[in-house]
């Protein structure tokens, strides 16, 4: 049984759970539609040779994101069987927020990193470490914000990876709990989103030559800033992983660009 099959089994269990004690026709229709959907998504994943874990993550994300709607649907079905009026639910604004919550959080993380990066030398005094550290954090914030734009306009996977990498500087501040929690949430959400894009075969998203230059400049900038700091101060070794991951982002961007052209 592949990871995608296990994820489908989890969804089937969830459907059976929330459709329990509902009218047979409604419950069976929902279960049958979901069985078909799960089969089709796995079949499509195999067709585009998507990794089974990516398909599994996508299936689980769709289940989790739809749980509130599932429960409202159950309430409506129960209300209908009891002869109560149905109230159509859902505010467009709330739906949009529910779909893009992690991008909003990512934007906040990016803005925070830029502001924090600028504040470090201003608060702690101007020297090599504070300017270098502030520049790294601010650049990471710009990477997050740039990733949101790249994801929207160019390449979903490259944008997601930029967001995930850019959120990494939020992790070392373990003593300020909301920061690593926010960072980790953004990293996980971006990774899941990239996995889903991969499961849909969206790695061929058209990428313009300008994007490759942008990615290359961003990677070079961060690498130039990080390399001496990593070599000279142990604290900054936490960021040693950044150039490697940025290189990965650039590689993926270049590969997409080659495939798109």
């Amino acid at each position: 049984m592949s990871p995608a099959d296990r994820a489908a089994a989890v969804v089937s269990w969830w459907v059976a759970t929330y459709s329990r004690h509902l009218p047979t026709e409604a419950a069976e229709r929902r279960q049958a539609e979901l069985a078909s959907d799960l089969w089709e998504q796995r079949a499509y994943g195999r067709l585009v040779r998507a990794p089974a874990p990516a398909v599994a993550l996508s299936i689980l994300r769709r289940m989790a994101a739809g749980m509130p709607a599932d429960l409202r649907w159950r309430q409506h079905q129960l209300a209908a069987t009891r002869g109560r009026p149905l109230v159509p639910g859902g505010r467009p604004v709330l739906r949009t927020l529910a779909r893009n919550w992690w991008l909003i959080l990512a934007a906040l993380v990016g803005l925070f990193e830029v502001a924090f990066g600028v504040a470090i030398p201003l608060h702690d005094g101007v020297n090599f470490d504070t300017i270098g550290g502030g520049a790294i954090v601010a650049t990471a914030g710009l990477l997050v914000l740039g990733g949101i734009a790249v994801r929207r306009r160019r390449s979903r996977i490259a944008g997601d990876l930029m967001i995930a990498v850019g959120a990494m500087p939020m992790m070392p501040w373990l003593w300020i709990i909301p920061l690593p929690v926010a960072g980790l949430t953004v990293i996980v959400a971006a990774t899941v989103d990239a996995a889903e894009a991969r499961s849909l075969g969206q790695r061929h998203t058209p990428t313009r030559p300008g994007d490759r230059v942008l990615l290359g400049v961003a990677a070079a900038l961060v690498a130039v800033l990080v390399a001496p700091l990593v070599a000279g101060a142990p604290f900054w070794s936490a960021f040693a992983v950044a150039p490697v991951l940025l290189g990965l982002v650039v590689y993926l961007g270049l590969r997409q660009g080659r495939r798109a052209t």
Partner: protein
Amino acid sequence: MRRKPGTLLPIEVDILDAGLGLRRTGGARFHGFQLAKQIADHAGPRPLTSHGTLYKALQRLEEAGLLTSQWEDPDIAAADGRPRRRLYEVTGAGERALAAWQARHGRMSGRPGLEPT
């Protein structure tokens, strides 16, 4: 929240738009995952619509007469070795509702052929 008659939620607009897009590419009838993928592919970099949101919206649109649906012939599904599909189709009322919505909101589909006539 109660809605004014004739208004469409964003997910309903997406469904009708994607359904008509599929029709233009030769598939008048479509199933749930096909629709979710069409929306994800054509409405910018968006994730696949969640199960709960998608099927709840499909049912709502069907109850409003903007979609019709029926189960696929079980023999076809059996021959392909897969579960039966519930196949949906955008009705004339659905097409008109979408065109009216787009005229009101000044929003045009990115897909060719959807310009209100």
